[in-house]
């Protein structure tokens, strides 16, 4: 990659189980406002933001073309607005393309999702399946994850006890992150005793229902210093699609994650992923996904997820200092929230959970059932 693109600002609402007191429009404006204030960026057609990339989902928002509702709240009146509707981390990938193409100097990204608005997020994800073969069986992202969890645990030796450790670690980190949703500390015993909602997934293995929004300002290399003295550089991004039908794919093969990671690492010049990152944010909607995605990302050996947990690797590798998805982000912006944490860490603004001297970070996002689609982002502070 010749020219570079910087993340010059990041804001998040903080995440909550039910932000019933706000329309999602206000949720978004709550974070657009400080970006304008802190960076001094304008919406001038010649020198300011001409294009805004939103990220949301029509079914969760219960509105056809829900970005139509966002135009005023994200500053897009008489400006461009393009909606990426998959995990919001892909809006960063698309924003990167907008700037590298030369078409735009500055891109504002605003992702939002209010899972609490609908009666059940599982009903929403059931609608991601085809109407004849999978939808009638009641498949949703949770029960399909449970199938993947069983297959992964059988293959890798990850046990219920390991998963308890993953959740406890997430809560420990989240307790230090004021933006996280689930911040109460848990003991392993509490996790092990929580009800089995979808065997082998327990209630405390699931990310909590969450509302919130994330915004970022992307700027071309030449102009990054106009907006910040702490730019964070996007050095690699890629994603990859796996099979739709569950039976078609190796549920534990991490096919699309491995491919996405390989392409992102190649672009970023990462040769030894297990050693190069100062921190890693993985999009773990369910506890088994933390070790499984880490394997797919090449951050521990194949089948070594349990060893990583046993050896305290979650801590030493600085996995999910934010608390991760397990501490609660809404589905549509899980990966975008991971990227936000990575940017905050690389800017040295993570407060009590700061990884000292963090220079290189990985953020991961996933969309679809059992990780059908994965996205990998590599960020550098230098």
């Amino acid at each position, binding site marked *: 990659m010749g020219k570079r693109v910087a993340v010059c600002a990041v804001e998040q609402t903080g995440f909550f189980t039910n932000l019933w007191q706000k329309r999602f429009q206000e949720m978004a404006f709550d974070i657009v406002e400080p970006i304008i204030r802190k960076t001094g960026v304008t919406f001038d057609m010649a020198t300011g933001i001409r294009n805004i990339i939103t990220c949301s989902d029509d079914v969760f928002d219960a509105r056809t073309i829900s970005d139509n509702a966002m135009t005023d709240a994200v500053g897009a009146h008489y400006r461009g607005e393009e909606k990426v509707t998959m995990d919001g981390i892909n809006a960063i990938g698309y924003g990167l393309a907008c700037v590298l193409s030369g078409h735009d100097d500055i891109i504002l990204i605003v992702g939002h999702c209010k899972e609490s608005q609908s009666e059940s997020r599982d009903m929403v994800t059931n609608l991601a399946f085809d109407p004849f073969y999978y939808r009638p*069986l009641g*498949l949703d992202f949770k029960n399909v994850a449970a199938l993947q969890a069983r297959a992964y645990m059988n293959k890798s030796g990850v046990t219920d006890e390991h998963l308890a450790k993953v959740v406890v670690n997430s809560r420990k980190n989240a307790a230090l992150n004021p933006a996280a949703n689930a911040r109460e500390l848990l003991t392993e015993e509490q996790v092990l005793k929580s009800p089995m909602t979808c065997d082998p997934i327990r209630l405390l293995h699931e990310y909590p229902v969450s509302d919130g929004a994330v915004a970022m300002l992307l700027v071309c290399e030449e102009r990054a210093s106009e907006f910040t003295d702490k730019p964070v550089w996007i050095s690699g991004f890629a994603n990859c699609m796996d099979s739709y039908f569950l039976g078609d794919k190796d549920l534990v093969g991490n096919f699309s994650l491995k491919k996405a990671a390989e392409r992102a690492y190649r672009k970023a010049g990462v040769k030894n992923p297990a050693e190069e990152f100062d921190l890693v944010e993985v999009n773990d909607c369910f506890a088994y996904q933390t070790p499984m995605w880490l394997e797919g990302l090449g951050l521990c050996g194949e089948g070594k997820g349990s060893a990583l947990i046993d050896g305290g690797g979650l801590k030493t590798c600085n996995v999910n200092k934010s608390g991760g998805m397990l501490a609660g982000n809404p589905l549509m912006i899980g990966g975008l929230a991971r990227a936000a944490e990575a940017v905050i860490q690389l800017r040295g603004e993570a407060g009590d959970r700061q990884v000292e001297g963090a220079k290189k970070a990985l953020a991961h996002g996933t969309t679809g059932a059992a990780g059908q689609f994965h996205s990998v982002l590599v960020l550098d502070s230098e």
Partner: protein
Amino acid sequence: MARQKLRQKDDKHEHCYIRDGKLALPYQYFAGRVGSRFLIALRDKKQILGVKCEKCNRVFVPPRQRCERCMEDLSDSWVELSDTGELTNYTVVNYEDKHLPRKPPYILAMIKLGGADTPLPHILEGIEPGKVELGMKVKAVFADETTNTILDVDHFEPV
């Protein structure tokens, strides 16, 4: 239509309310020629069909017009599958929701039918959740009434 009043979830937030509403619209989905053939065989002949990709040498179920890997046309390469198969994976669904076909707890399983290379998700009944074992043989039980969906197999049960 009489509407309910706006309601507040707590009194900490002045002027903030919830209105109960719906996202509700009518839809009609077409199975297409390939899907119809599969669904009609299921309904009228109690037959489970798969499609075979000669290039990849794999038999898929549910059917699809194209092989996802090599994009070959599979619409004329039907294979009759056995109505019995082997359980390759399962979960016990223990939460209740409107989109689910059964009250909890019930077993959602992956079943590799005889003649197929890809397992099919379906409901398993007739066995205690604690007694389910990977590799066990199960058999399709066809539904009495058709819904023109995969639920024309009502469930699978142990042989």
